[in-house]
Every structure is written in structure tokens, then in C-alpha cells.
């Protein structure tokens, strides 16, 4: 990794953590972390005046996220190509896991709307795994930045 970019990447990692913190706060506030919370958010809940989401409504929410996640994951993952993890199995598995997890997080609401309640668990698990992967990748990058200073 070129020395001149280390400073930029270090700050990028700090922003990544800030982004993750706001994402967790938003998920917690708008959806919630239990199966019932997720089902209420997507299927509606008359008791709490929550209107059921439509497929189009969900698509409008995930549309910017599809591009943003693709870009964000690419940026975060591609930095690791310039580290000692470049040819490791660990990185290869993490790349596949990251993109599959993001896809599961984004598209699971459609299955919830289709009546498959199990996908509420998929949504929650994917969100936590995605958050973990971001922290893990940030750690690997940070570790790599510090090693070569």
C-alpha cells in the first residue's frame, strides 16, 4: 500500500465506523431487532399505527442502497488487495460473504411481504453479519496500516 494513501484510508475507516453507528441507530429506531419488530415494520401493525410497506415502497428505499453498498463494499474490500491479505483464503471468503450478506439484507423484505416470516430472521442476521464484516474489514485494514508505518 502506498504511503501517501495511508492517511486517507485511516480517515475512511473512521468514517466507516460513523456510518455503521448511524446505520445501527436507524435500524434500531425504525425497524427494531426482534422478529416481531421486523414483521410489524414491513407488514404493518394497526396497534402502533404502522402502515404496511408495499414492494414499490421497499424498492424505493433499497434503490440508493443497492448502489451505495456495492460501491462502499468495493472500496473497503479493494484496499485489502494492497495488503498482506491479498492472496489469503480469508479475504476471498470474506469478499463472497460480504456481497451475499448485503444482498440478503437488502432483498429479504420482499420475501417477508410474500408471507415467508422466516426472512425476518434473515434480515436481522444479515444486518448483524454485515455490521460485523465492516468492523472486521476495518480492523484488518487498520492492522495492516499500522504494521507498515
Amino acid at each position, binding site marked *: 500500500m502506498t504511503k*501517501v494513501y495511508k492517511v486517507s484510508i485511516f480517515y475512511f475507516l473512521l468514517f466507516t465506523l*460513523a456510518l455503521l453507528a448511524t446505520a445501527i*441507530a436507524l435500524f434500531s429506531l425504525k425497524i427494531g431487532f426482534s422478529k416481531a419488530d421486523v414483521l410489524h415494520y414491513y407488514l404493518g401493525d394497526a396497534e402502533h399505527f404502522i402502515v404496511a410497506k408495499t414492494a414499490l415502497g421497499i424498492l424505493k428505499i433499497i434503490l440508493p442502497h443497492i448502489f451505495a453498498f456495492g*460501491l*462502499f463494499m468495493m472500496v473497503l474490500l479493494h484496499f485489502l488487495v494492497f495488503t498482506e491479505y491479498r492472496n489469503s483464503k480469508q479475504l476471498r471468503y470474506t469478499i463472497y460473504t460480504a456481497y451475499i450478506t448485503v444482498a440478503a439484507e437488502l432483498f429479504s423484505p420482499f420475501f417477508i411481504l410474500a408471507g415467508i416470516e422466516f426472512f425476518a430472521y434473515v434480515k436481522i442476521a444479515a444486518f448483524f453479519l454485515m455490521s460485523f464484516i465492516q468492523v472486521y474489514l476495518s480492523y484488518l485494514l487498520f492492522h495492516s496500516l499500522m504494521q507498515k508505518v
Partner: protein
Amino acid sequence: MRFTLIKDLKQDRAMRPIMSGLLIFILLYLLADFFVKYASIGLFSETLTHTLLGNADEFLDPITQASFLEHLHTETFFLMMILLTLSAVFMRLWHTTPFALILLNITMLSALLSLLALALSYYSSIGFINLYVVSYFTWHLGAIFMSISSLYRLYFD
């Protein structure tokens, strides 16, 4: 990020206008952001306070927590992507000169501080709003200066 691999950006006939285009669009984004913020949440402490806390005299409701978090979340994403791209170009042209490192650190730290100060203004004390205003303008001016100095380096230095 292919530009990071090209030896001399200033001498590259294709990459120089491409980099110039990127820098000009970043400049436009930074300038447009002033107008958008002015018209939406406010640029200065008084209007920002009204947005966050509401204003009974003008029948303004405070911003909801969901709207606030959505704003903070999208702001963080755009900020990190813009500053990463800009800093990559800037560092490629200025290398690790003391001027470049100081400017980069001031811009990045103030950008991070602006996000933190805005969150603290909403969740902790509105007193942090002045810190937000100062850090917001600092990172914007830093980023504008980084863009202009990169353009200068591409053509005149």
C-alpha cells in the same frame, strides 16, 4: 482509482482532463451543498437550532429523530466518499509534503467533528451547534482548497 497507478498525472494527456473534471465536479458539489443546507436544515446556528428544536413562535416542529438520523447517515456516506476520492487525488499530486498532510488532517478531522457535533447538538446539548457550524465550514473550505490546489498542481506547477 486507476489514476493512482499512473506515473505522472500532469503529463498524461488523457488523465489530466479527467482529473480536472472530477475536481471541478467536487468543487460544484461543495458549493451546491452550501445552498442546499441553507434551504433545508440551515447553515448557521440560529436556523439550525430551529430545525433541531423547533420554534413555537413560528409553529415549527422539531426534526423527528428518524429524519435526523437519515440526514446524518446519508451525510456520512457522501462525506466519506467525496473526501476519500478528493484526498486520493490531492495526495497523488502533493505527496506527503507538510502542507498536504496538515491540510488533509484539518479537513478530515473537521469533517468527522462536524458529524459528531451535529449528533451531540441533537442528543446532548444544543450548545454544540456552534462547534458544528465551525467544523462544517472548516471542512468545506479545506476541501475547496484541496480541490483548487490540486487543479493548480495539474496545470501550473
